[in-house]
């Protein structure tokens, strides 16, 4: 692991310990009340979900054009994070919606597109695990669709009439809401980088192991 990894883990742990206090001290929202505090984990995890899909897509694109296995390893690692942060987003969202909207789920554009984006990444992982030889390039093609879905998820609330809050909520947040949100977002970003690095390390070691097996056989 690189030298920055251990201090970054310590910093991330500290930030994870501080963020509940900031969230607890944040004010209640006037119409949603207590349940709005889900926002501080729902939104950062949704951002990481989209970021992971972009990383997976860009790495897959570079792998398809250059054939460098390092890009493939990065794409595979990012795809797992799409699934992780995606499931966090898709579970915390309905828990919030149940109270705020009165329903667990709405088949509106953002929610449906997010579910599709998550399922594309699940398909990517299944393809990598069970697809056999050549599945790396097929999965890379699939990851491009996952990335193409990202801007659609983001802007959908502004173009279609939907119950989901629009993208104007975050820029207009008062400091009392903004501070815990941005602190939580930076914490999630750090966690994302650390998890991505650890997951890439796993793929590097697997590649090293494969090379060793080949040298034993040869």
């Amino acid at each position, binding site marked *: 692991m690189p030298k920055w990894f251990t201090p970054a883990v310590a910093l991330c742990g500290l930030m994870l310990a501080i963020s509940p206090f900031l969230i607890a001290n944040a*004010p*209640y*929202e*006037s*119409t949603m*009340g*207590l*349940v*709005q*505090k*889900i926002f501080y*984990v*729902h939104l950062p*995890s949704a951002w990481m979900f989209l970021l992971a899909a972009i990383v997976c897509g860009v790495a897959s694109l570079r792998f398809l054009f250059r054939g460098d296995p390092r890009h493939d390893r990065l794409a595979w690692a990012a795809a*797992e994070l799409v699934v*992780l942060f995606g*499931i*966090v987003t898709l*579970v*915390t969202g309905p*828990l*919030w919606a*149940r*109270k705020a*909207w*009165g*329903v667990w789920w709405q088949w509106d554009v953002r929610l449906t597109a997010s579910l599709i984006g998550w399922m594309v990444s699940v398909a990517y992982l299944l393809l990598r695990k069970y697809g056999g030889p050549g599945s790396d390039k097929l999965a890379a093609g699939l990851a491009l669709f996952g990335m193409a879905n990202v801007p659609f998820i983001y802007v959908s*609330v502004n173009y279609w*009439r*939907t*119950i*989901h*809050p*629009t993208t*104007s*909520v975050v820029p*207009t*947040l*008062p400091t*009392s*809401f903004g501070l815990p949100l941005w602190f939580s977002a930076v914490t999630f970003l750090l*966690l994302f980088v650390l*998890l991505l690095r*650890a*997951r890439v*390390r*796993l793929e590097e*070691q*697997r590649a*090293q*192991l494969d090379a*060793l*097996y080949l*040298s*034993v056989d040869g």
Partner: protein
Amino acid sequence: MMKRTCVAVCLIWMLGLMGGVRPGEQATEWPSMTVLHAQQPEPQDEFVPIDELPPQDQLPAAPLLVVAYAFVVLALAAYLMSVARRLGGVQRDLDRLEAELKRSGRS
């Protein structure tokens, strides 16, 4: 041919029964969905802070909040453990293979 047609008609009829619609009847819209659409609040453009939480709002929201945060913690912990377990497994295999290679005099 006649047998297949009869089977198909029976299947359609059974599906209709399961969905609460008999063949020849007009399917009605699910009433709760109609009510649900009518009850939908307007989408929010900004969050407005308040100092006090309305009393009727405190109890129902708490379990949802607890479940949400518990899920986040559990999901992240499970993934961390999964990566650590896989890293440990691959590292053990690497160490074992390298030791075998050294014993057999290959580098």
